[in-house]
């Protein structure tokens, strides 16, 4: 797996210098030097999301053989290029348009570029359904495995900040008006959150191997539920996997510091997981549509023997974490559950 985020995560030894405190209202991804990794004549045309997607995906493609397909979750894709392309249509009165912005303006340009560079000619799909785009990508992968259509897939979630979209989202109250640094974000008690971006990629196999260090057991999603319905859905989801809340060791919650919608997390953990370890992640990378892919990367890192930074631990039970439920929602509308365990 591989991760580019607003923290130093594109390395083997993660968080050795702790977590960086972020003070801006947008948490920008720390991109690596792509020179040498991506041919320069391709790199200069890539949007940020494609760069991050290729930067995280290609090392995995080079390392692992026999990848049957690529599944990406990216609600906005190369949104900056899309907006640039649309603006050009207006600015130049529907005249001649530059091909680069057009090529990069589709959401599936990340998966497409990875397929071309990695010569992976099999299944290629991009899920764009906003706050559950990554959960849908996970579901897609699980279904392919279940049907025996694939044995190994590249699975990922990618999102870039677009200034144009950010400005619109500010106007509709999505983001905080006041300055809040990342240490105080989650419990700021005010409206709105901060905007983030990043890319997390995983090689997922249908069968356990000696290299496996985490298992994605199941995924579930629901739209526009009440907090009671979220609890009901969590119970049903666990029951469907022959589990109860008591079987969960750790809960990864998508608190984002927005006092209008964080009650979902409070209610779920108070109803079902009062004595369980609690983890958070948006104080590291802020909020974006496919942020649950970062949560999955954190869980997989934990299962792979890495120590998670203290900033992610909301409640420690000093018990080994063998099974985790990730629960995240976007603006209180789209809610996703991902169940993971040690293999």
């Amino acid at each position, binding site marked *: 797996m591989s991760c580019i985020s607003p923290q130093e995560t594109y390395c083997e030894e993660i968080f050795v210098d702790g977590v960086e405190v972020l003070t801006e209202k947008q948490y920008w991804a720390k991109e690596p030097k792509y020179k040498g990794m991506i041919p*320069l*004549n391709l790199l200069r*045309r890539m949007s940020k999301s494609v760069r991050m997607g290729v930067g995280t995906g290609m090392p995995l493609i080079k390392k692992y053989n026999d990848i049957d397909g690529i599944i990406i979750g990216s609600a906005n894709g190369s949104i900056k290029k899309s907006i640039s392309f649309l603006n050009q249509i207006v600015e*130049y009165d529907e*005249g*001649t*348009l*530059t*091909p680069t912005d057009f090529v990069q303006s589709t959401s599936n340009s990340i998966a497409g570029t990875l397929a071309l560079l990695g010569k992976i000619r099999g299944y290629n799909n991009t899920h764009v359904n906003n706050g559950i785009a990554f959960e849908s990508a996970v579901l897609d992968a699980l279904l392919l495995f279940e049907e025996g259509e694939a044995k190994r897939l590249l699975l990922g979630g990618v999102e870039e900040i677009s200034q144009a979209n950010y400005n619109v989202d500010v106007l509709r109250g999505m983001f905080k008006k006041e300055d809040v640094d990342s240490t105080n974000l989650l419990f700021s008690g005010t409206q709105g959150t901060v905007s983030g971006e990043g890319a997390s990629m995983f090689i997922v196999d249908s069968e356990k191997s000696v290299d496996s260090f985490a298992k994605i057991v199941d995924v579930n999603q629901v739209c526009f539920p009440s907090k009671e319905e979220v609890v009901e859905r969590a119970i049903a989801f666990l029951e469907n996997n022959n589990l109860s809340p008591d079987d969960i060791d750790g809960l990864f919650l998508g608190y984002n510091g927005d006092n209008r919608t964080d009650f979902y997390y409070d209610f779920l953990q108070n109803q079902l997981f009062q004595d369980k370890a609690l983890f958070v992640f948006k104080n590291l990378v802020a909020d974006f549509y496919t942020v649950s892919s970062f949560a999955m990367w954190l869980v997989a890192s934990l299962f792979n023997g890495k120590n998670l930074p203290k900033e992610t631990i909301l409640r420690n039970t000093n018990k080994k974490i063998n099974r985790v439920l990730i629960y995240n929602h976007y603006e209180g509308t789209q809610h996703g559950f991902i169940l993971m365990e040690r293999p």
Partner: protein
Amino acid sequence: MENKALKEKLKKQIIEYLNLIDVEPDDLQDDSPLFGPEGDLGLDSIDSVELLVLLEREYGLKITDPKEGRKVLEDINAMTDYIVTNAENY
């Protein structure tokens, strides 16, 4: 405008339109081929379309004949000559 100043402006526009990384205007030689194995920029067919868009937007010149386009985009000198000969404003 002197051809020298036009060439300088054109080189900056080429770098901007093609998003050439780590390339300065001085790195573009006036008589070095922009395309092909002899050129050191590694430009390809998508870049040629970008350059045609540049000529249309910045200088009001529309090239529809591929043969003419190939000649005009040969190097900086050829592009400059074409602009000086055909553009109303540059």
